[in-house]
């Protein structure tokens, strides 16, 4: 089994860990009835009734799936 010969320095450990960065998701902005929502593109959205209870998933005006 291969075994590290030298102790890994704090600097190189931290340099490796520093490379792990979060990327901002690409969102689309939709303004509907004065309310702005940001959502992922090309993805079905949940349709809610007036009380906010989820009804079904919709994509491009078509009912796609149940929630």
């Amino acid at each position, binding site marked *: 089994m291969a075994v590290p010969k030298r102790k890994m320095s704090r600097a190189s450990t931290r340099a490796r860990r520093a490379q792990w960065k979060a990327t901002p998701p690409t969102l689309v902005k939709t303004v509907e009835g004065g309310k702005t929502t940001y959502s992922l593109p*090309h993805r*079905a959205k949940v349709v809610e009734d007036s009380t906010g209870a989820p009804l079904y*998933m919709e*994509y491009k005006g078509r009912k*796609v*799936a149940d929630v």
Partner: protein
Amino acid sequence: MLANLAAALFTHKSIKTTETKAKRMRPLVERLITFAKRGDLHARRRVLAVIGDKTVVHELFTEIAPLVELREGGYTRITKLGFRKGDNASMVQIELVLEPVSPKPKSAKKTAAAAAASAPAEVAVEETEPAAEEAPVESAEQAEAVEVETAEVDAEAAPVGDAK
């Protein structure tokens, strides 16, 4: 697993699965539907080689095949839904496109393409003559303008050269 997914899709017409599985099963499903549209015994046996369940295959041949008779491919539709809670896998709804074919956008495109194909031949003939008439005039004007400009440039350049 793909065969089982395809059988489930033919049974339920619309199933929820992961994006990877849906994209892998799509070609298989479309090929099976093509066999179903052919409808003969050989085609049925080839479908039965993939899907063992005779009831599903019967349903595919008798119910689904007539609905997609006029559709030339693209029998399935994949819609992304979101991400699964446990492993964050992208979930999709894959469904059979059983609606009757509406050739409206397709025909519009085709007619436009056909018009565009036939029009240039006619337009080209019409355009060449006016273009031929206009072009010499324009080119002559441009040529004059260029000459005037070059003359001016020369005139400006000359004193500088003299000064040196």
